[in-house]
Each structure stands twice: as structure tokens, then as C-alpha cells.
């Protein structure tokens, strides 16, 4: 049943599980646990549709690279899936086996822990059962770039797809306009005792549950933890610590332009770095997409440049060639965009501000920052791609200067893939949640969503985060069953 908390506050006294946030992770987790027979509260801060009133609570400051954090996320039923583009690429075993550059450990679990959940996650995002993640094109010679393999979801809009299930699943109470404004931790028991819920008129009430799950996205999950004075007092979170640290995005770099050799197919080409590339260059992973411009110019400067490049071997003085190349400027046949891995680093972080939002929750600052290792990844991907493009006689690539000259500020845009702020690790020294997504130092507080990602690879995060949500549902189900049997 979906109820509006602004109008009716008919909460039960307690739930088996309280989930904060009804985006993809929260919805799937809630439906799974309710279907398993548990009483579940799914509390969504926004309404059924977009509203400026709710979205304003996502406003945050930025001291780092421009993230568009106020617009990239959507704060209403279905969450950011309401404007999801639908691209799906699963994680691979190497994402879990190879630690990131920079000193922090990678995933504390093997890929096999989530591999079994891939078919179910594919079904959730409406991909054909058993479909192969297919390639648009061949890879590049040299072994550094494979064809990227992905599938496109319709895309799935979770609120619409699961509207009936959210209304009718027994045991599941969905409350919209139901904002979590505090987490109350009981240090003596190690349990999160309650969350404090609020409507938009700031009417508050405590809600107890056996287990709690934060599923509000990478920025808000960290914000909820940092905003809790009781968690702070207990040392579960600390300012400047791992909670909120390691904020990661995927880097959309305007690598440059390219000239495609005459006669080649005009379709876009998508490549993905191989494991050999990552190993050889000690770099991150990345997708690159070379797409022709909508209106390729076959005249004027472009034609002149193209003709020159296709006849580079001509008998002409070196100085003349260099001088010519140094001067030509043209739009090229197409542009190259990317989705490149960012390594976890503690300087890239969410931190709490003194200023409060309309509901009394502290606002946050986002400092999205890259490291020298990330610049190295961009440089390696750009330069190796360009070399292999030429080697295969596909044409030539003109890199933007900031790709190969790391002293020049990088020009990039985000992908709205927020990850890493409550990263998974084998111990509290390196992460916020354990291998079961439980917050270190607590008995019953869990996190779902891409904030748990220890590394982000260069895979779109929605489908993988669903695999983790399904795994968490199984864990909670098993844990609660075990507790029930122990009592019996």
C-alpha cells in the first residue's frame, strides 16, 4: 500500500526492516523482503511525481569539479531511475580481483558473490533473459581495447513498473513524502534504535525496526550517516573519515576528434579497455565511443586535412609536413567521448555543512576531486587509443591538449554515477560497510546502492547495484530467519 505521510501517519509500531529511499535499490529490496514474509517500511522522501519542494532538499554546495548534484539525482518515487538512460554493462571478475591504484584496497569479495544475481537483475531492468551483452564493432589490434559489450534497458522506470507491486504486496508499507531526518544509534547495544521521520511541516516521529537500510544514493547515504550525532558520538562515523570519502564518478572526457578513413562504415564504435591494458599501464578501465558528427563536412578544411593525412607517406619535406599539421584546425569527422573509471581517493568527498535544510538536516558539500592516477588513466586511454586507431588504418585522432598534458586542467563532465561514499571493505580501516553491506560498528544498519562500491570500474552502476540489493535481501532474509529459529 502506498500512503502519503503528509496526510496519514499510520505507521506500525515496529517493522522487521525499515528502508530509507524508494529508488531502484530500495524498491527491489522492499519487494523481495516483503515477498519473503517480513514487515517492511519503505520510506520515500519525495512524492509520486517530481516536485520542487522535495528536489530542493538535494541542494548542496560544491568545491570540486562540477557535478550538477542538484539536478543529476531525482527525489521522488522511483528515484533517479526516472531519468535513467538505461545502459547496462555488468561488472567483470577483474573489477573485483584487481585492486585500485592509490593505496586503498579493492573489493573484499570475489565477483562470484554477485554473478549469480545477474539474471535476476537483468529481468528487473527488462533485458531479454539470457541475452548476451553484445558489441557494436570489433576490438582494436594490440590487445588494449576490446569492443565494449552492453545492452540497453527500455529504460525501466521503477515507480511505474512496480506500481502495482508496491500497492499490493502484503507486508509492505510504502510511505511517500516521508523524510528521514535523523538516525538514533544506541551505543550500549550497538543497534540503530530508530529513525526519525518527518513530513514537510516538520512533524516528526520515531520509527523502530529490527533492521535499517539506507538506500538514498551515494551523496544522501553519506549525508544521513554524517548527520547523525549519535553515530558520531559512538565513533561509528567521523568527520574527515571514510564515511563520505572516496566519492567516485565516471569521467566523461572530450578526448578529441578523429578523421575516419574514407570508405569505412559510419556507425559509432565503442571500445573498452582490456585487463591487459589495466595491467600494463597501471591505469583504470574505460569505455571510449567514437561517433561521427551528424553533419560530417567533406569540404574545405576537413577535406584538406583528410587528404593530407591519407597521403602522409608522400614525398614531402619533414618540416613542411610538421608545419602543415601544426596549423590545421578542423572539426574532424567525429568526436570521442568516454566513461572512464575514477580510483577511490579520500580527497574526493561529501562533508557536512553547518547550514540546515528546510527539515533541519545538515546540508553537504561535494568535493569531487580527481587524483594524478586518474589523469594517468585518461592520458593512457587517449594516447593508446589514438596509436592503435592509426595502426589499424582506421584514420587519425586529434587529442585535446589536456588529455596528454596533465599540467592543463582537465575538461570533463559527469555521468551521474555517484559511487563509493560508504565503500565496502574487509575492515573499518578501509571502508564503511562490511561484506554484507552492514555499517561497521553496528548490528543492524545496512547500506544499499552504489555508495557501497569499493571501485566503480567503467560499468554503468544501476544493474550492478541491483545485484548487490538482491544479495542484501537474501542476507537479511537469512539473518532474520536464523534469529527467528534461535528464539524458537
Amino acid at each position: 500500500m502506498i500512503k502519503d505521510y503528509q496526510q496519514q501517519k499510520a505507521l506500525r509500531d515496529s517493522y522487521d526492516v525499515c528502508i530509507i529511499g524508494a529508488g531502484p535499490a530500495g524498491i527491489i529490496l522492499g519487494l523481495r523482503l516483503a515477498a519473503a514474509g517480513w514487515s517492511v517500511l519503505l520510506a520515500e522522501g519525495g512524492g509520486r511525481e517530481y516536485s520542487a519542494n522535495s528536489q530542493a532538499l538535494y541542494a548542496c554546495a560544491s568545491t570540486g569539479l562540477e557535478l550538477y548534484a542538484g539536478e543529476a539525482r531525482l527525489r521522488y518515487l522511483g528515484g533517479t531511475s526516472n531519468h535513467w538512460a538505461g545502459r547496462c554493462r555488468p561488472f567483470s571478475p577483474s573489477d573485483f580481483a584487481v585492486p585500485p591504484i592509490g593505496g586503498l584496497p579493492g573489493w573484499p569479495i570475489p565477483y562470484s558473490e554477485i554473478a549469480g544475481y545477474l539474471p535476476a537483475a537483468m529481468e528487473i531492468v527488462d533485458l531479454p533473459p539470457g541475452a548476451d551483452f553484445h558489441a557494436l564493432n570489433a576490438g582494436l589490434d594490440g590487445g588494449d581495447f576490446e569492443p565494449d559489450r552492453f545492452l540497453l534497458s527500455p529504460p525501466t522506470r521503477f515507480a511505474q513498473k512496480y506500481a502495482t507491486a508496491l500497492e499490493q504486496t502484503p507486508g509492505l508499507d510504502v510511505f511517500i513524502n516521508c523524510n528521514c531526518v535523523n538516525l538514533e544509534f544506541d551505543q550500549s547495544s550497538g543497534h540503530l534504535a530508530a529513525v526519525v521521520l518527518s513530513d514537510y511541516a516538520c512533524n516528526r516521529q520515531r520509527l523502530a525496526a529490527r533492521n535499517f537500510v539506507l538506500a538514498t544514493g551515494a551523496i544522501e547515504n553519506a549525508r544521513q550517516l554524517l548527520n547523525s550525532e549519535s553515530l558520531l558520538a559512538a565513533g561509528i562515523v567521523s568527520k574527515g573519515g571514510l564515511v563520505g570519502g572516496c566519492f567516485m564518478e565516471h569521467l566523461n572526457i572530450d578526448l578529441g576528434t578523429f578523421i575516419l578513413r574514407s570508405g569505412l562504415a559510419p556507425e559509432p564504435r565503442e571500445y573498452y579497455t582490456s585487463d591487459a591494458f589495466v595491467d600494463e599501464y597501471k591505469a583504470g578501465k574505460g569505455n571510449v565511443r567514437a561517433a561521427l558528427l551528424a553533419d560530417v563536412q567533406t569540404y574545405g578544411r576537413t577535406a584538406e586535412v583528410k587528404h593530407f593525412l591519407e597521403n602522409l607517406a608522400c614525398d614531402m619535406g619533414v618540416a613542411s609536413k610538421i608545419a602543415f599539421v601544426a596549423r590545421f584546425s578542423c572539426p574532424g569527422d567525429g568526436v570521442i567521448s568516454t566513461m572512464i573509471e575514477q580510483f577511490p581517493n579520500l580527497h574526493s568527498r561529501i562533508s557536512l555543512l553547518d547550514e540546515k535544510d528546510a527539515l533541519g538536516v545538515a546540508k553537504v558539500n561535494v568535493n569531487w576531486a580527481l587524483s594524478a592516477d586518474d589523469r594517468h588513466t585518461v592520458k593512457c586511454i587517449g594516447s593508446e587509443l589514438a596509436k592503435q586507431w592509426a595502426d589499424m588504418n582506421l584514420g587519425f585522432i586529434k587529442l585535446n591538449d589536456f588529455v596528454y598534458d596533465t599540467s592543463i586542467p582537465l575538461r570533463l563532465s559527469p555521468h551521474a554515477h555517484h559511487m563509493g561514499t560508504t565503500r565496502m571493505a574487509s575492515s573499518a580501516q578501509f571502508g564503511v560497510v562490511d561484506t554484507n553491506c552492514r555499517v561497521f560498528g553496528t548490528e543492524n544498519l545496512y547500506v544499499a546502492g552504489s555508495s557501497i562500491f569499493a571501485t566503480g570500474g567503467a560499468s554503468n552502476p544501476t544493474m550492478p547495484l541491483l545485484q548487490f540489493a538482491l544479495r542484501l535481501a537474501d542476507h537479511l532474509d537469512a539473518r532474520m530467519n536464523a534469529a527467528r529459529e534461535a528464539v524458537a
Partner: protein
Amino acid sequence: MGKLTFCTAQLGRRGFLQSCVLLGVGGVVFAATPAVARQPAGGPGFVVINGWVLPSRYFRDKQP
């Protein structure tokens, strides 16, 4: 193949020096020598000129 016609003298000294500097950047990036007269051992070398990543073999003093 149509032969491109250029006159180095008309490009001017400044433009030529600028080109050399840009070629130097390529050398830094891909470990090729600024002179680009030699091909690095172990495979074809590349230079970056004005951002264009090009095989250095085309920039030898003498074509093979």
C-alpha cells in the same frame, strides 16, 4: 596520389619553431625523440603534433 605542394619558406620561421615545440610535446608523451628521424626500437613510434597522433615514420628526413 595527388602531391601536396608546400613551400617551407612561406610558412615563416615562427611557425616552424612552433611546430618543433609541439613535436617536442609529442616526444614527451610517447617517448619519441623530438627529432623524429629515428624510429624507436620495438615498434613504430608516434608523435603528437597539434594534438594529432601520427606515426613518426612519416616524419623522417627520408621516406622509406
